[in-house]
């Protein structure tokens, strides 16, 4: 491979075929390259990494969102339970006084 196939790499990234994208870039970098050519490969590499991080962050956001929803649900129920218990505690205290 003599030229960096940005389009092809871009398509592989879109499909999340990281390994293939990496292989293409590595093969390209193994050849004798000018600074510009090498630079384009660097850009492709950092972009690959950036896309991957975005992808991971997106998945992580979903997980975090679900856990946050769970936790918020718990909070609502705990606050209601807490209120009931405080009232029951007050009843017990009043019973003791009377």
């Amino acid at each position, binding site marked *: 491979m003599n030229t960096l196939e*940005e*389009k092809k790499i*871009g398509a592989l990234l879109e499909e999340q075929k*990281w*390994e293939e*994208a*990496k292989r293409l*870039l*590595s093969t390209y*970098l*193994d050849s004798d390259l000018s*600074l*510009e*050519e*090498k*630079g*384009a*490969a*660097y*850009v*492709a*590499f*950092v*972009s*690959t*990494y*950036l*896309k*991957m*991080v*975005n992808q*991971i*962050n*997106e*998945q*992580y*956001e*979903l*997980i*975090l*969102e679900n*856990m*946050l929803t*769970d*936790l*918020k649900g*718990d*909070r609502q*129920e*705990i*606050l209601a*339970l*807490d209120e*009931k*218990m*405080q009232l*029951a*505690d007050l009843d*017990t205290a009043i019973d*003791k006084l009377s």
Partner: protein
Amino acid sequence: MERISENTPPPKPGELEMKAHVAVDAAGELHMGYEPVGPQGYGPSKESVKAQEKELEKALNDQKFNEDLRSRYPDIESQESILQYHRAYEQIDDVGAQLMSFAQERIFDAALEQEPDDFVEGMRSGLRELAFSHPEIIFDLDLDLQEHHLRTAKLREMEDEFSAIRKQLLPRLETGAAILSQQESALKSAGRFPSALQPALNFLGGMFNTLRNKGGRNFQSMLEKGRERLGRHREERRTHLRAQREKIEEYQSHAESIGPLLQMQKKKLGEGARHILEGFPPLKEAADHAREEARKRILSLMKSPELKDLERAQEYLDGLKDNETLQFFEGLELDSTVRPTVPLRSKEAIQSELDLLLQAQLTTDLDEAINHMGSSNKDGFHQLRELINRVLIKDRLGSKQGDKLRTFIFNVLKLKMHDFDQNNQEDRVKSSRVNALMGALKGGSSV
């Protein structure tokens, strides 16, 4: 969350003018894509055409851009294409800077003060090349960078909210469990009477028996019903408390386990992405460069005969991350074999060497300060005190801290005491001053 217009190709010369668009809606969802400029379906507006003309004029007046453009496309005529290339060209600096800072933050080691030169230069040239060959890649990169910034900020906010709720819930649950215990023990002790009341109870028991005999069956049945009702009430209460206890325990276990669970999920996600970095040439180059830079820097600081430089070497060493982990995204540490191994030797080996250098240098400095001190040189004593106090305030000399550091200085001064000739007036003055300093060191105060 999804990218709207995911399949919308980037604008091509001659098409309806589009612009990259990233936004967060009211529900906090991130939307990205291209949107048309001007009223949709009616082509560009008058304003848009005017703006385009202005933009073209700017592009044609940009000498550097024109040189680059003509060297690649000497016969280019299409105004739309010129505009497209110019837009990408204008974004190079901004996208390049952001990409570089992303690479610095996420890929290279924090210890590396600057990226490898050929990497920086290469990326700049690469971006310039792309602006003319595939301008849409530059636009796409810009979108990815914006997405990265927005999403990491959103994740940080969500993580903060997550921790805040957990922090709020855990103590509440503890209080809830304590209240529940009180109620449970109140229920257990209900119906029991303190022993001091026993005589009164015996009397009431006697009265009750008399009444029961006199009242006959009706009274007895009334009492039994009352007892039964009370028993039922207690049983219900007991069941209710048991249910509450189970709920609280369930919430407690959820609130405690959800944090580690989240961490585990993060790690799992990161591990899936690890493969792309392994053995990848640009990263390996950067890693080698980072290692070499760190090695040079620390060795040059360690060669210095100045205590301050050695302390700076310590700070630098402290700043180096352990080599086994790679910061992948906010909060996630990922084990990786591709992580730049900085420095060449293990941190521990360098620390031991640095410890010896620091201790030797402080001993030399103390020795010199004591030698300069004398009955005729009050400044010498002042300098010695200043030196000791400076180290004590820092409370750090390599691996030595606190009492270990004090003991080390104390022992150096004690050794120096052997050098003093008690028949010499000057040495006697020095000895008494050093003795005073040793007393202060032993007493745990500053000198």
